[in-house]
């Protein structure tokens, strides 16, 4: 039966159900158990992660939820190593912004083991990480760095936009034998949606057409999906019906769904919170320009953050993240464009 739970609870449930099903699944990261050390009052007091996503797992699965030292290079490396030796770790890179200190472990080691060892090494690690702006966490705790991981062959990159997708994609990630970067937008943890109680896996590389329309295709990543839906409602008032596509995974990317849609609408707007140089908007725009050029009736519009660090000032941060009005402006630009 489906019932309404939050994005945070959906992720927690995915972890719990997979840990129940498969004893080799372990959870590790900074404060993933959180304060439940020997002699402490017990798991009721355990943090369960900086924003409570892993709460309750420590008590249910003794010995399988590990608090790590504050050293990403050490514990991300350890998780990757453990994955090659038969465990299926779900390790938390608390903020995607910290990737710098453990990037070699991820892009040079985990991503390449399978290839370089001729298929003899599998690295079934899931790196869960928080990304995104809007919570006043400032420049070093608010970036959207999934394009960097998307660029690396050998990694799979997931950007769930809803509780239903979060649970199904995380279950799929844990069952996947390759390294998966699971990107959770920190401003989505409290959103709610219908989620089945049972376990289910959503395949990678399958986009979700969240809204159907014939006048313009809007591809949006992660939290931008709900912003795009708002913009779609706004332009519907002017008689423009927008098709909103959520790729769900940036790697592998469901090219076919995007191309089919543009072939039908002839117009594309890509909404990507990541900064504009070499982000998913540029990637998808180039793909469409290359493979569906004949179908395009207007240049492609990209809506992203500006090429700056994320501001700490409330007023500036609010201007930084794409909002519905900017998407509406982009839709108008493509629908009103004349040569």
């Amino acid at each position, binding site marked *: 039966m489906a019932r309404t739970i939050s994005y945070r609870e959906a992720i927690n449930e995915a972890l719990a159900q997979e840990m129940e099903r498969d004893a080799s699944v372990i959870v590790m990261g900074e404060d993933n158990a959180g304060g439940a050390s020997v002699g402490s009052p017990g798991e009721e007091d355990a943090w369960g992660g900086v924003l409570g996503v892993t709460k309750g797992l420590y008590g249910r699965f003794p010995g399988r939820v590990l608090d790590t030292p504050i050293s990403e290079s050490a514990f991300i490396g350890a998780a990757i190593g453990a994955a090659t030796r038969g465990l299926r770790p779900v390790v938390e890179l608390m903020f995607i912004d910290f990737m710098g200190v453990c990037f070699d472990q991820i892009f040079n080691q985990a991503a390449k083991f399978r290839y370089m060892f001729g298929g003899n090494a599998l690295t079934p690690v899931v790196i869960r990480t928080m990304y995104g702006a809007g919570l006043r966490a400032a420049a070093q705790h608010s970036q959207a760095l999934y394009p960097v991981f998307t660029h690396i062959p050998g990694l799979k990159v997931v950007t769930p936009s809803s509780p239903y997708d979060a649970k199904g994609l995380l279950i799929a990630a844990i069952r996947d034998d390759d390294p998966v970067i699971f990107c959770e937008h920190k401003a989505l943890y409290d959103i709610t949606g219908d989620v*089945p109680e049972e376990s289910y896996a*959503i395949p990678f590389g399958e986009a979700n057409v969240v809204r*159907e329309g014939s006048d313009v295709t809007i591809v949006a990543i992660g939290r931008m999906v709900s912003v795009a839906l708002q913009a779609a409602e706004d332009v519907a008032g002017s008689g423009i019906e927008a098709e909103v596509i959520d790729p769900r995974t940036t790697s592998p990317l469901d090219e076919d769904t995007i191309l089919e849609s543009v072939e039908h609408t002839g117009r594309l707007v890509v909404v990507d919170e990541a900064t504009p140089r070499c982000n998913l908007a540029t990637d998808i725009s180039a793909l469409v320009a290359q493979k569906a050029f004949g179908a395009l009736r207007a240049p492609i519009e990209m809506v992203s953050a500006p090429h700056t660090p994320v501001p700490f000032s409330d007023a500036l941060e609010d201007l930084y993240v794409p909002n519905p009005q900017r998407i509406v402006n982009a839709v108008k630009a493509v629908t009103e464009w004349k040569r």
Partner: protein
Amino acid sequence: MTDDRIQRVTMPKWGLSMKTGTITGWVAAEGDEISQGDDLVEIDTDKIAGALESTWEGVLRKIVAEAGSSVPVGATIAVVAPADVSDEDVEAVVAQAREQLAAGVVEEEDAGAEVGTVEVDGRSISYATMGEGEDTIVLVHGYGGDKNSWLFVQEPLSHMHTVHALDLPGHGASSKDVGDGSLETMARAVLGFLDARGIGRAHLVGHSLGAAVVAAAAAEAPARVRSLTLVAPVGFGSDVDAEYLRGFAAATSRRQLKPLVGRLFADESLVTRQLVDDLLRYKRIDGVGAALQRLVDTLLDGDRQRIDTAARLGGVDVPTIVVWGREDRILPPTDINAAANVRVVDRAGHMVHMERPADVRHAVEAAVAAG
């Protein structure tokens, strides 16, 4: 005092999750004489579109909710009354209905369905019950379906009868384990449901595989079954769209599933994004793939039907009515031996209970009357 010959046409509840419906167009106009069974208005829910049939008699005096409006389930959308009821009385009712609509207040005349689960043979069986009446009807869906597929049939039948719709093992919100996936296992789940709900005897209605299941249940326990209504039934003849059955089990994406699901209907435009999305969500659940595979093995012998429902019903003396869509592409209507009363419905495909629910409803009523 309000003339109690004034009847309110209300937004029906089609399906458990329906909260509001959008009126897409009125078929009847103000001033028209309305009879039972007339199509009154076209309504879209987020799942599907359908026509509301009249269960009212009289003159359509006033339309309260115009085309384009979205209205909560249970709210008044029109007023029907005999021609001699005064305009003032009608207007009073209309004004009240408009106020309620504006305030978002909904009359709780229809409390909706009771949803629950029972344990049968170690499996959870999910069900939805509507209405209260002398006769008990149990609706059993087909392969890949669930209790919500009866959305246009359960509610109208529930005005006069107790109507249960259940999810077979492997489907809907029931346990996804189908055991050996045999017809006997499915039939036992239905009989077990009757036991668990304290139902002595019931009128069984089954669609497609569900029809073979209720027939098997009747063969196993004829004393429990007052009548059978078989809708587009499996097991009469050997022709079947085997590719559909296998393809449905194997499909993992919208692209694969949508064209297959289109084959279920005479009017393919009924296949909405939401419908396909709901099916995908069901198919992703752990265990569903394996369950559907088992059922395909139960249904198929090579590319032909394996089950022989006609044979099963051989010695069973239970009034039986068969309803079939003329344009059924999954199980083409065949000549059934005379014993059963067969009704073939025009402009309907395999999902005849969704495309022509009135015809299915009438068939069920006839079976109930005979049983």
